[in-house]
């Protein structure tokens, strides 16, 4: 059985993602090696922390190019999580210096902006369990019952998609929060499936069994 590559680019706590992949019965490999990523059956791009730092880490390790060539061009299934999802956008205003946003991978026609809920009682970050509404079907949501679509979020910035078809699921937090996006062989979640108990494990399992 070939492995599942979890991209290592110097960010915190991939342990849970690794354990979750193992729990689903697959072989996780935390790696930054282009060959190992190229040989993987599936690739996971996790992410916690700041957008600018993350993009710098990816670029300095040449991983942006590796993901472009070995994953996007080859049609290899990729699951991007949390900050990983945001990196797929064209830009993010997080910690933007002099108002100039950081550039992302640009795989989706989308931008990342600060969450600004219209209710002053809503705290930032958006942290905790929230319900995701399905905007369209996707294989990663197979078999997850409507009453079980709550997932664990922790973020202060959210993705805004210009292409409505890219949006698979949204949550409500005083504004719509893009929660699941997908295009071709790429799917991404703003929430953490590896922290979302059964629903998260099912989603992850669905991804690992997905062959687009």
């Amino acid at each position, binding site marked *: 059985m070939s492995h599942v590559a979890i991209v290592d680019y110097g960010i*915190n*706590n991939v*342990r*849970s993602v690794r*354990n*979750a992949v*193992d*729990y689903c019965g697959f072989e996780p490999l935390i790696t930054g090696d282009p060959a190992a990523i190229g040989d993987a059956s599936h690739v996971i791009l996790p992410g*916690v*922390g*700041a957008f600018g730092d993350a993009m710098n880490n990816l670029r300095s390790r040449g991983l942006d190019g590796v993901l472009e060539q070995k994953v996007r061009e080859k049609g290899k299934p990729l699951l991007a999580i949390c900050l990983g999802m945001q990196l797929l956008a064209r830009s993010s205003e997080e910690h933007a210096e002099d108002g100039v946003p950081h550039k992302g991978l640009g795989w989706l026609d989308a931008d990342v902006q600060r969450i600004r809920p219209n209710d002053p009682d*809503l*705290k*930032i*970050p*958006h*942290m*905790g*369990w*929230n*319900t995701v509404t399905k905007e369209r079907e996707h294989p990663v949501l197979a078999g*997850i*019952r*409507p*009453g*079980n679509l*709550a997932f*664990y*979020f*922790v*973020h*202060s910035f959210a993705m805004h998609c210009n292409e409505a078809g890219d949006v698979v699921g949204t949550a*409500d*937090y005083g504004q719509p929060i893009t929660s699941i996006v997908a295009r071709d062989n790429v799917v991404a979640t703003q929430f953490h499936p*590896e*922290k*979302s*108990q*059964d*629903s*998260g*494990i*099912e989603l992850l399992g669905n991804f690992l069994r997905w062959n687009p």
Partner: protein
Amino acid sequence: MLKKRLIPKFLLRDGRLVKYVRFFENERMAGNPVTTAKVYNDYGVDELIVLDIVPSAASRTRVIETIERMSEEIFMPFTVGGGVRAPEDVAALLRAGADKVSVNSEAVRRPEFVREAARIFGDQCITVSIDYKKVSARHSNVFIDGGRERMPLDPAEWALRCQDLHCGEILLGSIDRDGTMDGYDLDMINSVAGKLGVPLIVSGGCGSLQHAIDALEAGASAVAISSMFLFTDHSPIKLRSHLASRGLNVRAGAGSRN
């Protein structure tokens, strides 16, 4: 909408799960932390708080082992704390599997530490934990060092100052009510919750399903519960279904899946 959270609180002493009343009285063994965490995970609690109440180098090793083992089969957020004094402590706990790290005594001694840790690891990774006790009919003080040392600090004021230090959330615990199962300190919740810009987790005193409702309706974002789950037949499943039936916004999974 974002759900209110139901959070079991674990106290570890030398790596063993224990429970007291008012922090020091009536010590009872509370089980095995890893299997108990698994049980709570299967019940569908929202996250877990694990605190090392007599921190040392040896107990830290045990806590790390415990978190690592929990992370193997439990997939929900963990907040871990006890003796966190430096960025290396935060990093070690995050590496072991914690999602958030709780800082208590050191936040009082050196508030800058909270700001520093939030900057390095992200606001959402840092929870400030505050223990307090009544010192007169109308005043309470913050107590640090596992409830042993009294500080001339009002807990409500301190909580409001902490959010300026960029912590992700606040865990506010009444020592007087700890383990009594007589209800949360609703006066304190009422005086703090509305003014805080970060989520408030309240701790100390939950003994019935109604206590949890009262605390959440007073404005707490989450309730931490220990004795009620350990020593009564009110399980997290009962709590969730009771709260959901009464219209509170909690996760209420359908069937067996959480």
